[in-house]
């Protein structure tokens, strides 16, 4: 899909007749139908991917077929409505969050302009409150007395095909970033609503390919990219070669090694594509410098978990590989690389779903002896926690001037900030390795803005939507780019590294994106090294 020119979109977001810019729709939102056209929806999942997922034990992905959102007929099963209502009823009995969030909203509107999708599109149904009302209206109709008696008067409406289409449209215009839940007086979390909507849609075979294909790849090959074991190993070894070429020291890596002390899991994008590659090189340099006894796994070669964007069963099935592999290899604990949603799963779901990991030990840094008490049960440490601890104990020596080509700013990833509270560790690390500045205060820490393409929306066919949704983040970067000549947006998220790169290229050319560990490795001074001058750090092209 072609993306509008920058000037065009810049005008459109400010002057377009949207609710965000001051135009008030004349129709009630319930009367505005959704219209699918090229560019405003992500492609539906391919039939064979859905069939494959449906064939897996523990998962159910019915109604595999060829279909298009633009068609009137979505080829839903005949009893689709019963399936949806029954599905909603089941989930109301399983998730207290859903019940409370259905019942408690007072429509105060505090969440409305907190959503990056609303700010970028101005579409009223992208206000978190209205996104939830899409579901709440059906909930009222089926499950509340007032809704049953008073109908539309009480904000209730029938479940119809057009409501279903609306759910599809708007549950895939939410990145489950949870910014709205910070501002909601009752903590209503739109991520929960979106997750439920997506679960319900999968019950009738409505899902997108950009999510379900990585999910099926992950299941079979171990990672989103579908890299088979030998290819994964090759990719990592290319990076080993690059590191040797750049720094003069060949980092020691191993794969599927039994008896290693630590299993290292990171998103596969880090070994596959720029700029994540440099972050992966950073991990190797860091671990090699401290002599860490760790192994990569080709079987559990994906930290990311697109199951989180699908349904809780799929999330569990994919996540289970980490513990299974840790147990098989007999490691003591796991270190996790830089990823946002992976860390939401690890921090808030993994132990409940696939624990207890009693075959692992409470993580202890072999270098500093620090016991990571905060991970006593999960036994999985975030790379930034691990690195910050190394720095605190003086185990790493840095030369900040090796990052002198970088003026960085820090992007808090939604999940690590709002679903984990990992906020200060990265800043502590940044202070030691690079010259950096903060973006404006309403756009960082717990108020950070999403890249606009999370939850499996980083697909090219919806590029305009992504550029719109990423505008609040891009705009905050632009501010420090203009004011402080920032040229690097650092983060701890693999999706960010991919999507922010597109976003910066569009809105703020001249700003690159990197992982935190890349900056760490850039500045790291190793004993006995014979490192050439690297004017652009690990990105330096050597001939």
């Amino acid at each position, binding site marked *: 899909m072609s993306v509008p020119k920058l000037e065009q979109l*810049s005008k459109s977001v400010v002057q377009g007749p949207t609710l965000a810019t001051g135009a008030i729709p004349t129709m009630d939102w319930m009367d505005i139908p959704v219209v699918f056209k090229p560019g405003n929806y992500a492609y539906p999942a391919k039939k064979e991917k859905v069939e494959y997922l449906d064939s897996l034990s523990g998962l159910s992905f019915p109604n595999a077929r060829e279909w298009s959102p633009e068609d009137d007929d979505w080829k839903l099963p005949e009893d689709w409505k019963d399936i949806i209502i029954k599905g909603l009823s089941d989930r109301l009995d399983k998730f207290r969050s859903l019940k409370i969030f259905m019942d408690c909203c007072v429509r105060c509107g505090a969440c409305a302009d907190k959503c990056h999708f609303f700010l970028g599109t101005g579409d009223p149904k992208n206000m978190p409150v209205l996104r939830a009302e899409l579901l709440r209206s059906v909930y009222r109709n089926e499950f509340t007395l007032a809704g049953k008696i008073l109908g539309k008067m009480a904000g209730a409406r029938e479940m119809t095909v057009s409501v279903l289409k609306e759910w599809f449209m708007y549950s895939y215009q939410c990145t489950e970033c949870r910014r709205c*839940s910070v501002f909601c007086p009752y903590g209503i979390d739109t991520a929960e609503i979106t997750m439920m909507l997506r679960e319900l849609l999968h019950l009738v075979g409505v899902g997108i390919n950009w999510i379900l294909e990585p999910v099926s790849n992950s299941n079979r090959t171990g990672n989103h990219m579908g890299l088979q*074991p030998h290819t994964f190993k090759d990719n990592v070894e290319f990076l080993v070669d690059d590191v040797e070429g750049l720094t003069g020291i060949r980092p020691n890596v191993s*794969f599927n090694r039994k008896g290693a002390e630590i299993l290292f899991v990171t998103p596969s994008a880090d070994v596959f594509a720029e700029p994540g590659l440099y972050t992966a090189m950073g991990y190797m340099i860091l671990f090699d410098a401290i002599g860490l006894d760790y192994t990569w796994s080709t079987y559990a070669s994906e930290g990311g978990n697109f199951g989180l964007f699908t349904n809780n069963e799929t999330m569990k*099935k994919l996540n289970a590989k980490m513990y299974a592999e840790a147990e098989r290899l007999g490691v003591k604990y796991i270190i996790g690389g830089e990823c946002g949603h992976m860390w939401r799963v690890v921090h808030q779901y993994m132990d*409940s779903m696939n624990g207890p990991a009693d075959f692992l030990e409470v993580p202890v840094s072999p270098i500093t002896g620090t016991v990571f008490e905060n991970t006593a049960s*999960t036994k999985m440490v975030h790379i930034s926690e691990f690195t*910050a601890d190394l720095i605190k104990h003086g185990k790493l020596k840095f030369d900040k001037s090796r990052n002198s080509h970088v003026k960085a700013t820090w992007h808090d990833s939604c999940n690590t900030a709002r679903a984990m509270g990992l*906020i200060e560790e990265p800043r502590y690390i940044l202070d030691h390795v690079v010259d950096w500045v903060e973006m404006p205060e309403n756009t960082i820490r717990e108020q950070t803005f999403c890249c606009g393409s999370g939850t499996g929306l980083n697909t090219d066919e919806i590029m305009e939507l992504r550029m719109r949704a990423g505008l609040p983040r891009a705009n905050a970067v632009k501010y420090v780019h203009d004011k402080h000549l920032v040229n690097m947006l650092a983060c701890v998220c693999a999706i960010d590294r991919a999507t922010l790169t597109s976003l910066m290229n569009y809105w703020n050319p001249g700003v690159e994106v990197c992982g935190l560990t890349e900056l760490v490795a850039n500045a790291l001074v190793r004993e006995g090294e014979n490192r050439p001058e690297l004017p652009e750090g690990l990105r330096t092209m050597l001939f």
Partner: protein
Amino acid sequence: MKYAFSFLAVIALVLIAWLGSQIPGMPYLFGVALPYLALMIFLGGFVYRVVHWAKTPVPFSIQTTCGQGKSLDFIKHSKLEAPNTTAEVVARMFLEIVCFRSLFRNTKSEIHDGPHITYESSKWLWVFSLIFHYSFLVVVIRHLRLFLDPVPACIGWIEYLDGLFQVGAPTWYMTDIGLLAGVALLFGRRLITRHVRFISLVNDYFPLVLIFTIALTGILMRYFLRTDIDIVNVKQLTVGLATFSPVIGAEIGSIFYIHIFLVCILLAYFPFSKLMHSGGVFMSPTRNMKNNTRAVRHINPWNPRILPHSYAGYEDDFREYMVEAGLPVEKELPPKKDEE
């Protein structure tokens, strides 16, 4: 239209109480039967709803962290924003429920040419909400005077503080003004703020109009129509209600029946409406859970048994490639048959 309907509904209710209470014998319906019925619906409905929520499991620990979680010793933990202990959760919830902390954070975004997005602190909703809720709370507490005999001293203190400025005769209570103003401000905001107006339902306007009218009739009784009602009879009735021996003496006055009828409607409406946020706010998983999930396992009572694609299956799928690439395998390749 939605707000207009709310007005119509409340006007209809007022007429019902006004006309109805004039029919001989009906005061007992409005003064005794309906209050008991409404109270039963309120208590029963409220408890039912809370139990209904409480019975539903919380499968995952989905706290929203609004600050630094507890991790390393030298990283300053934000105890209120990412609580790690029960005491810290209680403190977070206390500030949320008593001070409306999340609303205090509210910002207003604007998009300017450039594009250039700005965010500024916006405390109006927070202020309006505080005025409304606290005025309502004090008004309700003051009303206990009517149901208790003797009247506890603390109610006298509250009344004294509430009327501290001693304006007018009888002295105007600040919270009477506060309640009317709070409702009016929230209502006005709903009409004027464009996005809030767009999302508002009848369910949002109706309770505001209803509470406004309740406050208005109360104020009329206390300050302007004092001669129309007999306060001694009112107290006799209300104390009687509280002691399950209600008596309606001489005529009390229609305005009183309108007031009490609207209160009954509010009570009966409460458990079926968004007003249940008063119970739900205590139980929201994003706010009332600890952020210690990597340290202490949270149990999902319905955790389904789902196994990953097994390593053995994975190796079977790729063994040949793995051996060729020098990756360790659990099961070696079958020996090659000699070619002949």
